[in-house]
């Protein structure tokens, strides 16, 4: 059951998107997120949806995986949509009036736009992690943030912390599984009872899990010191990130499309 989480998962492949420089991917993703909120009318968001669908096609990631990754945030989407529906007031007459609840046409328009935005936001950022290995991702973040080290921010250390955290997710999931089985064998009831009982039942799992996480951290620190790890200063890399013509080409194509989405703000004002 805990293995079913797909957000932040990596799907290895060899598409153009998989091979794109991770720094470029991060920057373009961020631009895309900003754009989602800049685009103020349905035409812009429709174009953004088409663009993202196209990118998923190129990356060869099946639709059901997107659906699966959206499932856990469904409550947030519903919550946002409902809030917008009820609390946006417009100039025209309300469409529905039930006591204190008034729904305006502007409210519906805004709720739908907001819902689509959140879905695109998750799907867009998921595409980044689907096509980029965690190691490449942290590498890219480290490089992108490197100017901040001039301000004495521990950029390399932060990136290392992230890499280690990502690397240990599967290990800890496996560990949780083992501990759960061991306690189940001793008669633990994990999936029945009241909320309070269930939370109490988690204690015998969480304590051993923390103990083992600390032990692993200790061992890893020791192993790193044994191999003379001493932070980022003067450290060279096996794989140097280099921007190729291909990367720039993708960048230009995306920027043109982003521009087109932005332009819809001026041309389809009537919608």
């Amino acid at each position: 059951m805990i293995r079913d989480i797909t957000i932040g998962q990596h799907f290895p492949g060899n598409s153009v998107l998989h091979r794109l420089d991770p720094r470029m991917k991060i920057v373009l993703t961020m631009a895309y997120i900003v754009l989602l909120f800049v685009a103020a009318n349905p035409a812009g968001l429709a174009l953004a949806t088409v663009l993202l669908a196209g990118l998923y096609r190129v990356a060869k990631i099946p639709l059901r995986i997107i659906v699966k990754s959206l499932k856990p945030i469904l409550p947030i989407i519903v919550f946002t949509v409902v809030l917008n529906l009820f609390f946006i007031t417009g100039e025209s007459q309300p469409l529905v009036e039930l006591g204190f609840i008034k729904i305006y046409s502007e409210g519906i328009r805004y709720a739908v736009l907001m819902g689509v935005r959140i879905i695109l936001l998750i799907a867009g950022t998921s595409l980044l992690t689907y096509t980029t290995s965690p190691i490449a991702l942290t590498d890219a973040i480290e490089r992108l943030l490197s100017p901040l080290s001039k301000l004495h921010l521990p950029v390399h250390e932060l990136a290392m912390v992230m890499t280690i955290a990502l690397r240990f997710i599967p290990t800890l999931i496996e560990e949780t599984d083992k501990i759960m089985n061991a306690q189940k064998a001793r008669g633990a009831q994990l999936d029945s009872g009241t909320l309070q009982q269930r939370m109490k039942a988690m204690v015998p799992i969480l304590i051993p899990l923390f103990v083992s996480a600390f032990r692993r951290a200790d061992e890893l620190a020791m192993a790193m010191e044994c191999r003379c790890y001493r932070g980022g200063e003067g450290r060279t890399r096996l794989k140097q990130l280099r921007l190729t013509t291909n990367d720039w080409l993708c960048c230009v194509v995306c920027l043109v499309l982003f521009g087109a989405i932005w332009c819809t703000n001026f041309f389809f004002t009537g919608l």
Partner: protein
Amino acid sequence: MAAIIQAEHLTHIYGQGMPDASKAIDDINFEIQEGEFVGLIGSTGSGKSTLINHFNGILKPTSGKLYVDGQDMWANPKDIRKFRFMVGLVFQYPEYQLFEETVEKDIAYGPINMGLSESEVAQRVKQAAQLCEIDQEMLQKSPFELSGGQKRRVAIAGVIAMQPRVLVLDEPAAGLDPEGRDNILSQIKAYHKQTGTTVILVSHSMEDIAKYADKVIVMNQSKLAMYDTTEKIFARADELLQMGLSVPQVTKIFLKLREMGVDLPADVYTIPYAVKTILAAVGKKEVWE
């Protein structure tokens, strides 16, 4: 007498319906009688752990049936806890399951889950502690202060305190020093003799299996390859070696001697028996002047 554990065409497939589905155990059939001490051997990945995880319902068989004390384990999935208390399972490196403030409380976790009365729990904890040689002083300590071998004993006591009719141990001696190893295993043997509990011991050490088990199940590539008394299993040394397993050192010596033409039996697997056989052979032929 009905078998305490009986498997019928037991099969388990991991990730069924997925492209990476794999058969972990395939059509397993056997019966274990009450009061037996059974060794379970097999190379890594042969399906041993998957098999024992079925014994108390941690895993549900993909197909086939498992009977505990004559009752179908999965006839009513809601009753699965009843079987968990009937078959105690000690996992590999069980010390990682300890969590309570004191050793005493940790041992009591299983019995409390069974819904026993306070006095009954206290009595069982005392008994289990005694069987595992945990003294009064250690009972009041935090389990995290103990040494590796002590933690292991506490974890095993935690399962024994539930007084299961079958005790399954997955490599209980892994990672311990030779003394800790002998201690734990001989305690388990003593417990077996004292209470008549059925014991299933998974081990990679042929010496341990030879020393303690009456019968042996051999797993190979998801299938049950052999199931027989210990001497008959170790007499089939060639087959065991082909499966990537081994035989006890003393058996190896006897096989070599037989190859050299010395007339000795093939089913020697413990040192005392070896000494007896050699003395008998010497007495008979008197060639070792």
